[in-house]
């Protein structure tokens, strides 16, 4: 059934992404590896905007933009060039930002997302290259700030800004788009989303097909959903009270979860865009065939192949391809000859679930080990070996461990610091699946010790059965198979 969009919601996004897999900045040879560096140690006359310094464009940035363009099924411009966007703010040492204006490198494209009513196409308006400004740090809180400290290490970082059509119909769709977009960029190996400030989003949103409001400065996917939910509620309230929505820019306050009006007197014409005379125009469509050759299998194609090759469900394939490193890890496990369907259940449902529960973000995969960092504290690292997953899935498939015990092993590895194989952990913790007579004995004991629950169950209280199963699991320290225990109890009590 088609989604009717009852509130007439339209959401468009502008996404700024650092091409942080490049070694150097957009227009100079300064290293992009500044995240743990002291302020103003990754700068030079070009990115400090010193008089007379000449920018020279990083070829790899242009290649990355073409890659992104092709992955978004976008048109690559025959001729493209840079403009100066003039405004005075201390994060811009030159007094202007080098960006693209009416000749962006990437034109119309599209991304297919899982929308409110199945597959939904989000149009891409354009994507262009630009430089990141420096970073401002307020002394004290923003309100009571006594001054501002400027660090130009970020100045000149290569960015790609992607603008979508207002095709998203709910905050959920906006978030799905961002997840998909980030996934594509990571497949292309142009972007590491785990680095601070790597992706920043502005969203424009309107209700009842009305006037749009821009919400700026959102730094996380969750933040986008929250900002949009708040802003939609605010607009609906204004209209319900008989008010009108004015076209304006609002700022998202992540801490308080609200959007605040920003009074701005600057309009597009005030930026006095003009061609950047220090940079030559580009004609790069000739590069397209060679770049196409280097394009990896993209998420949708990989998902289709997984379903075909491994006979797994669409849901599992979707989860496994949601991160390229997880997809590679899964294929690494399958290559060792384990059953792909069982491996998919363990990797997509259990393993990924446990990672999300712990706020761990996948950050590396080298063919043998998948690594993660804590989403809020990158210093916290951990990893999981392909060989451990293979061992665990095999033990489970052979019926040597219960599913509960296998989950336990995954948790122990994720929370542990010692290098232990699943077999060692199972041995140490006594997690091997209980022999059947052990379970039978536990069932008999449970029935004998819990006469009240037994009576309740016989009397028709189905809930009591869960309690009895729980008692059996407790007696066997979780090594019994819950399904077997349940069947044995039912057989014993109801014949």
């Amino acid at each position, binding site marked *: 059934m088609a989604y009717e969009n009852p509130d007439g919601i339209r959401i468009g996004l502008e996404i700024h992404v650092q091409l942080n897999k490049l070694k150097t900045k957009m227009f100079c040879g300064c290293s992009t590896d500044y995240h743990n560096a002291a*302020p103003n140690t990754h700068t030079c006359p070009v990115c400090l905007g010193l008089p007379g310094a000449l920018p020279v464009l990083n070829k790899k940035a242009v290649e990355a933009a073409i890659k992104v363009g092709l992955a978004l099924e976008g048109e690559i411009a025959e001729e493209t060039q840079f403009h100066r966007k003039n405004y005075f703010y*201390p994060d811009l040492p030159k007094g202007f930002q080098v960006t693209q204006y009416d000749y962006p490198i990437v034109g119309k494209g599209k991304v297919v997302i899982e929308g409110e009513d199945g597959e939904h196409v989000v149009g891409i308006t354009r994507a262009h290259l630009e430089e990141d400004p420096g970073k401002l740090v307020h002394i004290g809180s923003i309100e009571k700030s006594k001054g501002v400290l400027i660090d130009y290490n970020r100045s000149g970082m290569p960015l790609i800004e992607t603008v979508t059509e207002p095709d998203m119909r709910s905050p959920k769709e906006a978030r799905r788009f961002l997840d998909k977009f980030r996934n594509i960029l990571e497949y292309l190996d142009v972007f590491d989303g785990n680095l601070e400030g790597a992706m920043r989003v502005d969203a424009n949103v309107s209700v009842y097909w009305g006037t749009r409001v821009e919400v700026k400065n959102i730094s996380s996917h969750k933040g986008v959903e929250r900002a949009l939910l708040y802003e939609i509620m605010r607009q609906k309230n204004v209209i319900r009270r008989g008010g009108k929505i004015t076209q304006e820019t609002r700022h998202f306050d992540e801490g308080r979860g609200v959007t605040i009006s920003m009074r701005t007197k600057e309009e597009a014409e005030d930026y006095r865009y003009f061609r950047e005379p220090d940079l030559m125009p580009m004609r790069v469509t000739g590069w397209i065939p060679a770049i196409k050759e280097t394009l990896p299998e993209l998420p949708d194609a990989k998902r289709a192949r997984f379903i075909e090759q491994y006979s797994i469900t669409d849901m599992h394939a979707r989860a496994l391809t949601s991160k390229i490193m997880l997809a590679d890890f899964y294929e690494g496990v399958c290559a060792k000859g384990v059953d792909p369907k069982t491996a998919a259940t363990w990797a997509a449902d259990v393993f990924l679930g446990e990672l999300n529960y712990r706020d761990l973000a996948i950050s590396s995969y080298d063919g043998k080990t998948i690594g993660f960092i804590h989403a809020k504290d990158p210093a916290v690292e951990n990893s999981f070996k392909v060989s451990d997953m293979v061992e665990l899935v095999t033990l489970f498939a052979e019926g040597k461990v219960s599913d509960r015990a296998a989950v336990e092993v995954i948790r122990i590895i994720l929370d542990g610091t010692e290098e232990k194989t699943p077999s060692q952990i199972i041995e140490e913790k006594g997690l091997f699946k209980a022999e059947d007579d052990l379970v039978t004995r536990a069932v008999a004991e449970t029935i004998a010790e819990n006469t009240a629950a037994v009576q309740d169950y016989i009397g028709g209280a189905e809930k009591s059965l869960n309690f009895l199963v729980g008692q059996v699991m407790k007696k066997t320290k979780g090594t019994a198979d819950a399904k077997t225990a349940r069947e044995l109890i039912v057989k014993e009590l109801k014949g």
Partner: protein
Amino acid sequence: MITKEDVEHIGWLARIEINEQETVEYMEKLNSVLEYFGQIDELPTEDVAPTYHVAEIYNVFREDMVEECLPQEIVLTNTEHKQDGAFRVPKIG
């Protein structure tokens, strides 16, 4: 025609304080520049492609190779307004 309000607005964009006397002075000067461009505008240029660069050069790139950056003390050498390795500026309104 550039008005006094335009001059004030331009001053605000550039974050420059302009007093009453200067506003009038700049308005007159800017209008004379505009007048001169008005003269150029009279030339028939419909059939002439715009020239943005004198040399017809395309595709000037550098390789993605790391070069040495400036040391922090050199970066900050031209300012008195510094703190903890950063440039310090007044609060921005």
